[in-house]
């Protein structure tokens, strides 16, 4: 598995922060990578988010961050590789989820090319 501490080799690395309430509606978005309307429920739009959403809202605030590296998506405008980070916290008396999405497409494409060579060699042996 790749890790997120290796640094971007490409200069891409723009990140977007989306804050969701526990109903899945957008409270805030930095819109750095793509525009998300406030109040829109986006849970069903992103299968990764949908599949962990219930677990996130059942987790404690101030628990560990949930991180997923090299998430490959074909969502329109997000065609590439991204690092996802979810943190559950309490803000002004309300439990919220901060979802950070960082574009690492160029970096992970290079990793994938290197890994492809390694894995093909392993499969030949």
């Amino acid at each position, binding site marked *: *598995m*790749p890790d997120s501490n290796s640094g971007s080799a490409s200069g891409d690395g723009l990140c977007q922060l989306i804050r969701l309430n526990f109903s899945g509606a957008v409270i805030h978005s930095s819109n750095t990578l793509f525009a998300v309307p406030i109040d829109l429920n986006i849970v069903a739009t992103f*299968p*990764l988010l*949908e*599949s*962990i*959403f*219930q*677990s996130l809202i059942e987790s404690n605030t101030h628990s560990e961050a*949930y*991180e*997923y*590296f*090299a*998430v*490959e*998506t074909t969502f329109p405008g997000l065609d590439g*590789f991204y690092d996802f980070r979810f943190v559950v916290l309490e803000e002004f008396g309300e439990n919220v989820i901060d979802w950070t999405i960082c574009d690492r497409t160029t970096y*992970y494409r290079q*990793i*994938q090319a290197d*890994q*492809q060579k390694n*894995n*093909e060699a*392993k*499969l030949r042996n």
Partner: protein
Amino acid sequence: MLSKKIILTGSLGVGKTSLFNQFLYQRFDEKYLTTIGVKVDKKTVMVNGRELSLLVWDIAGEIKQDKVPRTYFLGSSALIYVFDLTRPTTYSNMLEDLKYLKMITPGVVIRVIGNKIDLVDLEKLNDILDKVPATIDFTTSAKTGENVENVFFSIGEELLDNA
């Protein structure tokens, strides 16, 4: 609608992505392309007259399952442990892997799948199955689609029975 998370896991090159593509898109590519992180997509199926949304995770292959980040298993309802019927190294860690997976995901449905049945001579299949150290639930071919839907439907049935 009820939705359930299913993870395809196993060693590298066993055909997890091909099973993912066959189930979700009815597509197969002969060329091997390594998965480095995770892909997730969903498909709605009808199981015994009930709609069920399956959220399927295709993750990078690891020779040993304890290398898979624990966060990947968060909220999972089922695991599909895939090995390659033609490569014994892909099932050499099977008992250890399954023990580990059961420990970190208690109560989760697990299916053990021998993939690439299309590459196996039927006369040799029993010899291979004798060598596999755990009970196999299905043999599949992501290439021809053999048994692929059956794997997911059997999981869907068990999940609905338990719901």
